[in-house]
């Protein structure tokens, strides 16, 4: 008992710490225009590749832009769009997964086989396909990631709905005269959402990683918009002379992804404990 208790406390500490870090990051994204000392896209070749100074706390890049300002503004892109990917994929997955799980039969077969088809194609290939059609850009990358991501949610939700459907209380609700919609609203969604929130936290890290890798490859965010992956890409030519150009955005990606993963792990552990 006591050992378990300590574990819960420990994981709660992780939850609190991670949540604080994430809150801080979200605050930064909101307050970026006020926090940033300089314009992130202002080119000033007279000051290129400068070391940290009072005016440029983290130095400047090859075009003389303030690195700190760029990192702060980049947080808006990374976190904001990762959130967008997460919410859209979750909504699509929730709707399709619930329909497939609840209706069953050929509807289920059709939706799930379609999902399997999408899952067979790696996300990179998808994005490349979109980029091939519409050219490089943030929209294409996001669309590609959502298209791949919703299938995971749909499959998990379908599984949960299937097992919930076997519970007697769903039958009892039907016998009490509740419609399918009421059953979904009252009995299925409240039981499905908590594990999804946990899963979503883990997936946020994934989305940020992917968004940054796509930008690193030059497929996502286009210059001069600041984005961590794109900043690493721009900095890589100066790795010998100015390694900090790659280091700072790299550290930011690491911080965010690790925080999301730790939080997700801790949440799922706690959730598991709670479920007996």
């Amino acid at each position, binding site marked *: 008992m006591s050992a378990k208790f300590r574990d819960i406390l420990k994981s709660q500490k992780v939850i609190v710490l991670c949540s604080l870090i994430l809150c801080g990051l979200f605050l930064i994204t909101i307050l970026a225009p006020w926090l940033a000392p300089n314009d992130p896209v202002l080119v000033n070749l007279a000051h290129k590749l400068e070391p940290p100074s009072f005016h440029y706390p983290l130095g400047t890049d090859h075009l003389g832009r303030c690195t700190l300002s760029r990192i702060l503004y980049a947080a808006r892109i990374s976190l904001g769009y990762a959130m967008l990917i997460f919410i859209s994929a979750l909504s699509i997955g929730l709707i399709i997964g619930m329909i497939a799980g609840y209706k069953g039969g050929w509807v289920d077969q059709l939706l799930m086989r379609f999902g399997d088809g999408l899952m067979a194609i790696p996300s990179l290939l998808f994005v490349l396909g979109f980029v091939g059609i519409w050219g490089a850009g943030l929209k294409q990358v996001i669309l590609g990631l959502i298209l791949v991501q919703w299938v995971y949610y749909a499959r998990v939700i379908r599984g949960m709905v299937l097992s919930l459907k076997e519970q007697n209380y769903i039958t009892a609700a039907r*016998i009490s*005269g509740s419609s399918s919609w009421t059953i979904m609203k*009252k009995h299925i969604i409240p039981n499905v959402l908590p594990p999804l929130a946990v899963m979503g936290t883990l997936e946020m890290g994934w989305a940020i990683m992917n968004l940054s890798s796509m930008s690193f490859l030059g497929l996502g965010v286009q210059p001069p918009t600041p984005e961590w992956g794109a900043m690493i890409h721009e900095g890589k030519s100066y790795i010998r002379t100015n390694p900090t150009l790659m280091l700072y955005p790299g550290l930011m990606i690491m911080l965010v992804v690790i925080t999301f993963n730790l939080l997700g792990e801790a949440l799922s552990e706690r959730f598991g404990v709670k479920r007996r």
Partner: protein
Amino acid sequence: MTVRKVVKPMSLLQVKEVTHSYNAKKLFTWKDQSKKALIDVSFSIEEGTCLGLLGTSGAGKSTLGKVILGIQRPQHGRVLFQGYDIYHASKMIQRKIRRDLQVVFQDSYSSVNPRMTAERIISEPLQNYENLTLSEQKRTVISLLERVGLSEKDLKKYPHQFSGGQLQRVNIARAIALKPKLIVLDESVSSLDMVTQSLILQLLRELKDDFGLSYLFITHDIKAAFSISDTFGVLEKGELIGLYDSKDQLFASKHPVVERMRDSVLAEHPRLRTLRARGNLV
């Protein structure tokens, strides 16, 4: 099919030649693996009586319960409730039948949503059928709770805060909320301990008299069936092998299945024990 009305002596529930098999056909297997769960089952339940449906596990009892509740359409045969075919009636009549047919399952914990309080569990059928104000609804729920031997204090409790017997009372309260005509009791007392079991059976008997309820009491326990049922049916491998109008008739039956069931009943007093010779102390 048209709605058929049976004119003369109308039983509350009539089950006519119901046959149902589970389709176990899988992809990649050619042979038909369908398993017959019910074969040509016919019986009826009169208003205000209880039919005890006996059978071993896997005899098709639960399938029959689902067929009667209108949630498992049988491949053949008809189920008439107050003369209406429940699978072929109009939407309006189906909705009315739905209200008169309720169920209490064996596993009380899986029959309620773990995230809902007793109040919300019991008010669910009321919300679906009655137009009550919130305070009326709450009063109704309290009176239902009191009727099944719980109290106002239990309104805000969650399922895990109840014992198995108490939770079964919550399930019963939900089942009687709409004042139904027939309740299917699917092994409703089988997983409770003996004392709780007889208390719940006592409650069910009282409710039957108070509300003029009819029951279909599905069980494997001949003793439990005896304490509540008026008539009996025995199901074996999907076939109804006998219908008996009284306990004496059931006892007099020479059918091997009934005999085996009867012989499986354990002695109530050590003097009557058959498993061990009397007073055997090695």
